[in-house]
């Protein structure tokens, strides 16, 4: 049983560009959350998707958007990239009624130059 998978592993973008990160949840999980982790910091909650709808959102600007597909996979889009968006982006999945126990993927390392 594959766990949470994310692609790509690493990504380098230029300021002002747009990026799309992808996540496939663990089998049987229908809820997907995205987190941003800056170097030396704990992960920060971006938003959560359930039943293809954004259910909760953290303190991130509208440049951060997402989508969940019928197969529960998800995308994170970031527009107008800033240098400060450089971070590890983590996807986590869980069953809808067990969201305290989230399974994290290995993350996508985004570098904005």
């Amino acid at each position, binding site marked *: 049983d594959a766990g*949470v998978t994310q692609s790509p592993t690493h990504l380098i973008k230029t300021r002002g560009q747009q990026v799309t990160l992808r996540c496939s949840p663990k089998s049987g999980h229908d*809820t997907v*959350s995205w*987190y941003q982790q800056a170097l*030396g*910091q*704990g*992960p*920060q*909650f971006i938003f*959560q998707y*359930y039943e293809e709808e954004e*259910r*909760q959102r*953290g303190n991130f600007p509208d440049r951060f958007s997402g989508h969940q597909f019928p197969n529960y996979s998800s995308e994170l889009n970031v527009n107008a990239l800033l240098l400060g968006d450089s971070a590890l982006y*983590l*996807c*986590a999945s*869980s069953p*809808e*009624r*067990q*969201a*305290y*126990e*989230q*399974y*994290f*993927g*290995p*993350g996508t390392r985004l570098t904005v130059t």
Partner: protein
Amino acid sequence: LAKTTQPISMDSYEGQEVNITCSHNNIATNDYITWYQQFPSQGPRFIIQGYKTKVTNEVASLFIPADRKSSTLSLPRVSLSDTAVYYCLVGLTGNTGKLIFGQGTTLQVKP
């Protein structure tokens, strides 16, 4: 969600028991306490969750006093592979899904 305070770093030696204490003075009645572990270049991993008294699983034990204003994660007989960052989280269970991570405690296990 309740704010948590935990030591920035701890050192230990192989074979020792490690106790990491987290303070959460403003914990609400409905809040559960959850601990995650994160190795370098990996996503966090759920370790244990509890509400009161003591919870034990194959990885760790969690001790919560009656006033629930703090909690202690206990790792028995640590090995080098337990070197990681440990996060204490406080919040609701169920379908909120909004995990609030602090800076965590970096545990360094030495040979």
